[in-house]
């Protein structure tokens, strides 16, 4: 990530890890504040989808780094769009579900 440095790589990945904690805690706080109850396994599914999408983005840019930009964009397009659709579907089913609206 940072050629020629000995410490920045570690700091970068530590920051990436810390951000994952923030994402999970932030999602939990938002769910509590809005009175939505989402079982843990649905959370895992949604977070897995997010991580998988992130990997697709990383893969596309890895190809771009290898001077295969065209393949990289196609990679993100073909594999990323299904992730977005799946993620939106899960949000609708697990978070913005109709029962919540009735209860509220």
């Amino acid at each position, binding site marked *: *990530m940072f*050629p020629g440095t000995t410490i920045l790589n570690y700091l970068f990945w530590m920051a990436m890890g810390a951000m994952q904690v923030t994402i999970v805690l932030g999602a939990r706080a938002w769910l509590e*504040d809005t009175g939505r109850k989402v079982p843990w396994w649905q959370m895992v599914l949604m977070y897995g989808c997010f991580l998988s999408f*992130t990997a697709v983005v990383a893969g596309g840019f*890895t190809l771009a780094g*290898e*001077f295969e930009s*065209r*393949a990289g964009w196609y990679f993100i397009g073909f594999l990323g769009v299904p992730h977005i659709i799946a993620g939106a579907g899960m949000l609708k089913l697990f978070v913005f579900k109709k029962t919540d609206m009735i209860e509220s």
Partner: protein
Amino acid sequence: MSKEKDALEIIGDPANFRSRTDHLASLDKDPDTVSEHPPEPEKKGLSRRGFLKIGGAAAAAATVGGAGAAGFAIGRSDDAYTGYNRTYQGGDMFFNREPFRVDLPTFFEPVGPVERPDWTEYLFQRKHVIMELIQKGEWTPDMGLKKLPGPVGDHYRSRPRDQYDNMMLSLEKSVTRAEAWRAGKHKRYAIADAYNSSFRSTGMYNRYGSTIPEEPTEKHMETGKPIPPEEWDFRHIWRKEPMAFKSPKHASKLIKRMAHMYGMSLVGITKFDPRFMFKGLMRGMAHQGHDSWGDKVPGHWKSIIVFGVPMYWDSTYAAVGYSTSFDAYFRSRCASGLLERFIQELGYPARAQFPGHNYEIMMSPFVQLAGLGEYSRAGVVMVPELGANFRPAAVITDIEFEYDKPISVRMADFCKKCKICAKACPSGAIPKTDEPETVVRGFKRWKLDEEKCHLQWCSGPTSDGLGCRVCIGVCPYSRKNTWIHTISRELEPRDPTHLVSTGLLAMQTNFFKYPEAEEFKSDWDGGKEANYHKAPWWMRSDNFFEIEKTWEYHGME
């Protein structure tokens, strides 16, 4: 009258403990109760929960961005250039071959009587003889095939006529190429050609005595005496007895380590198999043994150590004009000379087999038998780490080793479906049949049309025109060492359904863009001098020299 509470009771009452921001819970309670305990006014600024919510959303966006940036850096990093590693420990050998060991390499089951190759089946030996005849004035192309003397004439007369025609056309194209070079190509390809020539003319074919390794043919030319392998292979041995290894396993471990120490990315060891040794070819003998050697096999040729390195990745992707084999040839050639000497210093005979044409053996079968790689459609061996971008050399010795077994990682199976190299081949030399159909000396093979391939070599845009390498550059296995390709390499051979290979091939053919086969050719040969990838920045002469750029780069950036 309700009992009054003192201060300590109020503090200690659990009913009085409530999260400051637990507003939703308070809504569910009785309004009277709420009025008794009104919520504290919100403090200005970001609360802890507010920070978590906003921070979480920001972290999600940053994660995606960070992953993209990290991916880009991984792809662009020098660490992705497999074989150009920073250690001598074989750190690039990231593919674990052990789960894929088999007794026979793919397509190694004979389907007929196995024949040893004759020296005339080696294209560059044929070409060498033809050039020698022309130089001596003993034969010229206008005299025709009928009068072409000797075994080379017999070779061409016993085969389809177009093979001879293509060889003659190659000689003509070489003349045209030299004219085009002088007329202007020397500007566009100045750096690529200088890079190539530095290896070729100093590292490979230096005529002033500093060439590595020592070469028996040159010694024979100096002394005029034949130098059989029983003499040459033992020439530096000074010990009365060889250093005895503790076990064959110890021998393998040390020699492999030494190959890495000499800069080799991959190394494997196998038993010497005379079926893949040329007949009538022995360097150091008069006329390289064409007339005298016959089918003899030196008694001390028992084991063969096979090793190699990749050609530099970015230039290989920029084939034809910006690529060279000589960078890898030079490195593997040097290693063969160094390892040969190392073994002789320990008291064992050794004979280096090295590029360009210093062989008594066919290299490809030994690379497969040593478990380094598999046979491919284009006729070159593919290895899991480097794909077809691999240039081997070898040392033959009589040390008893623990041999490596061949591997089957289904690369050859992938070749059945993938015809990318055949479609991209500018000369049409690579067969497009699904299965290997031609029986070559007892084995079924996709038979590369060598003369067609060589014709394209001679039609390249650089000064020597030696090589094309388009098939190697476009091969889906010739990919760098990044996690995304590693996942593919590890998954594909383990997938019993073959869905992974189908998916990978679909991505390869749809996501990646290849020039049309004709576009790879030189402009004077009807092409555009296109490349799979554009030339790397350091090979573009217009980036560095005061010259007028009269060309366009065609290919992926």
